[in-house]
């Protein structure tokens, strides 16, 4: 690799490692209740490959590359949009439960 590309690659690695550290740190303690929405929410984020698909679609000249790009745009959009919609739907149901843990405990204390 020429030095410019190598330097760039090193910077990419920094971004990779730092982002991973943030990912590890942020999900340190999640209540079980939120595992499913967190899964589907982060699934929607991983649809970020949509950005890659757009980049490809904008730069591609051969029809094969364009086809692949448009296919990727379609698939990734389903992933992104569906993911966020379904997560929101799930969370809207949890919302009613949000104070559950607290109230639930209060309730049980009251009863004991």
């Amino acid at each position, binding site marked *: 690799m020429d030095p410019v590309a190598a330097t760039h690659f090193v910077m990419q690695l920094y971004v990779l490692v730092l982002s991973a550290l943030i*990912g590890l740190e942020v999900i340190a303690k999640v209540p079980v209740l939120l595992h*499913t*929405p967190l899964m589907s929410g982060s699934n929607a984020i991983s649809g970020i490959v949509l950005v*890659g698909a757009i980049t490809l679609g*904008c730069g591609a000249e051969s029809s094969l590359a364009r086809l692949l790009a448009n296919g990727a745009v379609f698939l990734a959009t389903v*992933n992104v949009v569906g993911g966020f919609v*379904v997560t929101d739907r799930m969370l809207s149901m949890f919302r009613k439960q*949000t104070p559950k843990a607290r109230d639930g405990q209060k309730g049980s204390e009251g009863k004991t």
Partner: protein
Amino acid sequence: MLINVNTWASVLHGALLVAGVGFVLCLKLLASPRTARQGNAIGALAMLLACGATLAQAQPDVGAIRAMLVAAAAGAVVGVITGRRVHMTAMPQLVAVFNGLGGAASVFVAGGELVRWGGHAGGALQLNPIGEIGPALALSAWAGAWVGGLTFSGSLIAFGKLQGLLSSQPVCIPKGRIAVCLTLLLLLGAGGAMVIAPKSLLLFGIVVVIAEILGILLTLPIGGADMPVVISLLNAYSGLAALACGFVVNSPLLILSGSLVGASGIILTRLMCQAMNRSLANVVFGAFGAATQQTSGQDGKEMKEFSPLDTAMLLRNAERVIVVPGYGLAVSQGQRAVREIADVLKQQGTQVVYAVHPVAGRMPGHMNVLLAEADVPYDDLLDLEAVNPEFLHTDVTLIVGANDVVNPAARDDPSSPLAGMPILHADKSRAVIVFKRGKGRGFAGVENPLFTADNAHVVFGDAKQSLTAVASHLKQL
């Protein structure tokens, strides 16, 4: 003028970085109940921003824009409709499908970039205008192809199992381990080849095909009930596939988001395993060894049957009732019938609460969603620690399609496969009534001594039907 162009470019770069921060914030907020919904909205906004800025950055010709907009619109429509329509209980398989699509998109992107390399150097190779593709770039394309491909086929298998299209039993592939090792070796070899000939579409195709096979080999042996964990793992993989694509198309935002989702997904998978008291290795490779299930010592005792009418009469005289919902309730969709019974009981002055085990059902939070759908007030949902002391003072415990989460063997028998999992002490209550269809076992495939205990009776049949019968008897009594 030059300054203007530069400024605009900086704004776009800034917007992409802001989107990245938005994703971090999204995950952070998603991890706390109070802020989760907000977090999801922020994630969606960040995605919109990212797409807009990318488009503005690339300044494509009208034809390309039009084609992509059509594709995106179609995708959005499909996404919204499935996202809105799908049943809450089908959530895991839905996430699996979305996941698979994301993996496939990664494959497409890596492949498309490869096609461009074959043509002439441009876009992503700005930094390397000679057009020579270094090993780092070639290996990124390789990684995008196989991680994405594996995610795709694995997710489809997971979907098939959860949706009932495939048998949800663990399938024991003969010589599965050897086959997996072989495909892995093939993948490594293909990677080496891609470094030498990075522009070969044939090689890329081979990698994809091998990856698809690997995905199937890895997922097929896993039982349907373990699928939520597998989906979470595949979710992490789809993040890693996006990460690889980030190197391919040279987008720091993709690298950031992919790495973020990959790392957090792996942690989340671990947390899910812990909640179910299993190890990740056990989930992923469990079925490769012996798929035989333990048929532990039946102590010869038989279940004592009860009719819905018996149940109704017992409930009439109860002062404290606890309902333990489980997977069977989700299967039979009987949550409204449960609430009906609870309503009648509350009218007669009986105290009714629900004991929600964290891993009851087939996805985390499953029971909370189910009961919320039936408008059960959240004050009535008690979690493990809160409810366990209550069983001692309880007259009747209704176990509706739950099994493993009330299996006393987990507590009493250290040799049980469930040993160590915290359970609901339903067996401590005065009377226990179990709603189940037959002699079926729970997810862990273990005999449940509670069902044959002296204080326990079983109402056989689909939970929804039995419950409806109980409710109507109750109203007539």
